[in-house]
């Protein structure tokens, strides 16, 4: 009897334990969400009903920086396409990669330092989203993706343009599929959904959410892959390898035999 009493005093009751567990889970959830939002990549702000002032601020920025090509009402001109229906994902992609604003519409847009700050981008995104319904900014957690699945999807869908190592490649007409070295997870997901530039669109029926997360995780891996063999030589394949074989390999051999043999 004494033993039973001491047991019940030393251990908390069942209900208490459930409450503690729920509290811990809730705390973890809060911590996790906070960590995601505080992570190095500035997460895009959610578009909620309180966004009206943001839309107006975005419109002001738009009129200054974008309307000369995309038109005063966002419906496009001969210099730039309509933005109605491109969605928040498009705007966010082009602005965070610095591809827009674009100086010369005929050139292929390239990754640059973004011209706007994060709050300004949020405002512009809000304005563009208000022009018409379109793809929302995807929320993707790379860790939820599966690395081998990401490899297979990447090899089947992406490697023929962006190369197996993510180093980029040539398309026709002086266009290139860019290197993926600086792409953030959100930007990768956005690009898949909107098909920027020459890129095809990979809609939700072709790549579902989990598959997108896997691709994102694999692209993330490619930004710093295992290079157990030594210097990566740019991961461009046999051509730089051939150069090294001739210049370093054969070159050193020729140096040695010049040293060993006579020269007359």
């Amino acid at each position, binding site marked *: 009897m004494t033993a039973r009493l001491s047991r019940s005093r030393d251990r908390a009751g069942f209900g208490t334990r459930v409450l503690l567990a729920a509290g811990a889970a809730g705390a973890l959830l809060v911590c996790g969400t906070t960590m995601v939002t505080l992570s190095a990549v500035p997460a895009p702000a959610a578009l909620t009903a309180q966004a009206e002032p943001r839309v107006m601020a975005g419109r002001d920025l738009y009129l200054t920086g974008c309307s000369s090509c995309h038109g005063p009402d966002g419906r496009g001109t001969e210099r730039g396409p309509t933005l109605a229906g491109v969605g928040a994902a498009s705007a966010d992609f082009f602005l965070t990669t610095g591809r827009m604003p674009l100086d010369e519409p005929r050139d292929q847009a390239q990754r640059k330092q973004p011209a706007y700050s994060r709050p300004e981008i949020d405002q512009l995104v809000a304005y563009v989203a208000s022009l018409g319904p379109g793809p929302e900014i995807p929320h993707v957690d790379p860790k939820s993706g599966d690395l081998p699945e990401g490899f297979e999807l990447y090899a089947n869908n992406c490697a023929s343009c962006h190369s197996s190592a993510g180093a980029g490649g040539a398309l026709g007409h002086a266009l290139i599929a860019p290197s993926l070295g600086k792409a953030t997870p959100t930007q990768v997901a956005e690009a898949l959904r909107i098909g920027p530039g020459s*890129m095809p669109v990979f809609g939700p029926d072709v790549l579902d959410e989990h598959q997108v997360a896997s691709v994102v995780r694999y692209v993330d891996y490619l930004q710093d892959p295992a290079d157990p063999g030594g210097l990566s030589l740019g991961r461009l394949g046999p051509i730089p390898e051939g150069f090294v074989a001739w210049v370093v390999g054969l070159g050193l051999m020729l140096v040695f035999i010049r040293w060993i043999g006579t020269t007359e």
Partner: protein
Amino acid sequence: MTDNAPPDHAPGGSTHDADVVDPAEVVATAERRIAISFVVATVAALGLAGVYVAGGQAQAEGALLFVSLGGVGVGLVLWGGHLLGEEEVTDQRKDLEATEEEQEAIGEALHTDQPEGRRKFLGRLLGAAAAALGLAALFPVRSLGPSPGNRLRRTAWTPGARLIDQDGRLVRVDTVSRDGIVTVFPEGRTEAADSQAVLVRVDAEAMRHRPGRETWAPEGNVAYSKICPHVGCPVGLYQAPTHELVCPCHQSTFDVLDGARPLFGPATRSLPQLPLAVDPEGFLVAQADFDEPVGPGFWTRDR
């Protein structure tokens, strides 16, 4: 007559002329260098053994092997070059051409005492036997592979075969969004390499159908063989704005809106088009197999 001053004598007593190097010094320096090389090589080799035992690391292994092997090499070269008293020697070459006497001697050695006619005839029979045997010896080569037959003209696509993607999911008429591309196979046959096709979604109004192909692309879903007619690489690059399929190997470019006609590059023919239809449940199906052989050209392709 000018008095040619004798060369300066350095206090040590040895002849010191800027152009003459003391041979003993050379040898001593060489010995020192050789010794250092071999010692460095030994240390590196021991280090290599240590790295290996500790679990191995490619860069360390490579670097240590380089030093170790290089040390031995340098030492040996220096030894051969400086310690052996380098001297140039001259040797005579023998004339390799056979003299008349030698040629006659060989002729005599080859000669056999045989009557002309019958032996010549027997010789010819031997030749025939050898040729026939040689020919027969080629027959096992036939076992190396099947006859081409019709294999190059047929793929696994059959009338009514439903389209699936690489994960085995059925493709509906609206699965692929505009400007999207997906690789498809006949249902159940994702291992059929010759059947691989790309399904592209374009604006139905913009399609310029070849005669007889008006029904082949329902609602802008158009499918072509993915195997490049040049040397067979999979044509996986799709440039949406210009509606061009580009082959990553040698940059052959095909116009999706015009029956995948080759616009640029070494490809000489269009990609064969797969005739599509929509079944009652809304899935995309093939009307029939491709109407021409897929892939690279061959001698009897047009027959």
